[in-house]
């Protein structure tokens, strides 16, 4: 099994409404919102999944590889 931290995290460009809810709750301050794009600092992110819960539309997914509709 790969460690959780090696998993890929991303916000689907299709689902995300770039509201910033994930940015505000991230305990490590490692999510960035640039106009309409959410990015993660995957070196800092521990995949704690708090942002997954905070996202009102379920746009954030953690998985082995990029998999979401873009």
């Amino acid at each position, binding site marked *: 099994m790969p460690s959780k931290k090696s998993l890929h995290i991303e916000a689907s460009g299709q689902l995300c*409404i*770039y509201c910033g*809810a994930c940015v*505000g709750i991230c*305990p490590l301050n490692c999510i960035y919102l640039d106009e309409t794009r959410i990015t993660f600092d995957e070196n800092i992110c521990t995949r704690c999944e708090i942002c997954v*819960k905070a996202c009102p539309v379920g746009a954030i997914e953690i998985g082995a590889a990029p998999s979401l509709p873009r």
Partner: protein
Amino acid sequence: MVQDLKTDVLVIGAGPAGSMTAKWAAKNGAKVLMIEKRQEIGSPVRCGEGMSKEWLTEVGIKPGKWINVEVEGARIYSPREQVFEINEKSAGNEVGYVVERDGFDKQLAIDAANEGVDVVLKTAAVEILKDHGKVVGAKVKQSGQAFDIRAPITIGADGFESQVGRWAGLPTNLALRDMDTCLQYRMTNVESDVRYCDFYLGKVAPGGYVWIFPKDEGVANVGIGVQVSQVKTTAEARKYLDAWIAKHPGYAKGKKIDMVGGGVSISPPLKQTVLDGFMLVGDAARMIDPLTGGGIANGCIAGKICGEVAANAVHGGDTSAVFLQAYERGWRGRLEEKLYRNWLAKEKLCTISDETFDKLIDALQGVKLQKLNVHNILKAVHEKYPEVTKEFEAFL
């Protein structure tokens, strides 16, 4: 290579709190630069667009074209949908306007510009600059180019998703129980009532509520907030909101024409909002009312104080955290007690059952409250259901 810039006061974020801060700093003689990372101030909207109005004159905002509807009152629905109506006669001035938030934000930015504030779009802070522990400005990115803006006073007004506060060294982290995840549709062809803002309490929105804010005849913002600590699966805010709409025929037949999301802090006030050369204001400083989720009024009230203190600090040549305590004292004196009281009330309300909500609203039937606050509501409930208020003795 873009040249570095210098100003007296750098305001990061051009929402209501940022524009108010910038305006009042400029009005008091400071040279102010306000940066906004988006390409359009106020857009995309991230707000339910309901606000009270009694505070507007206090901070010098004149009613304008940004007002959609002036409501007569609010209706609170219990889980079994018994209504408690709050109107201006029974509850003072707590109710107010439903607004066009993008227009409101732009008007405040115009007011700031009219006082001499420089406003720059598409410019994002990416780092806080420090010199010997004191904040001295920010590194920014503008159209792909990075440069420094140096200022004796830097102000973080970057909203709920604030990062500059944490970059500067103020812990603004939220507990999961101190945040609501929110989603809203603007809907048309619905049976909303332009005279009222409606609120639905209970398990329809755990740790939050469903709101209906009328924008026009048959058009309303229909939204929900759900406490993050009560979220179990993904996209829960949307699932709860869709379920509520499906159960209400007057809304199920409506069409969605807009979708808005966001986070709302429902936390106690921060312990600290100033550092040497730095102040935090508005949603970034967790000034949202934890009971109502409203942040505009508090952000503007604190913004005025923040701007005045910033200008005084620049004029006096003292931008130390000690001098900036004037802001800390000012906003706390005006807002802190209510924020803390409402946070306690929210903590309690998030735990109570639908049955208790039903009793609370039932007990308020026919009651005329002199002033709408937690204490007066509980006093009224106590007369009919003393066993219900046992849970709330701390508030009585």
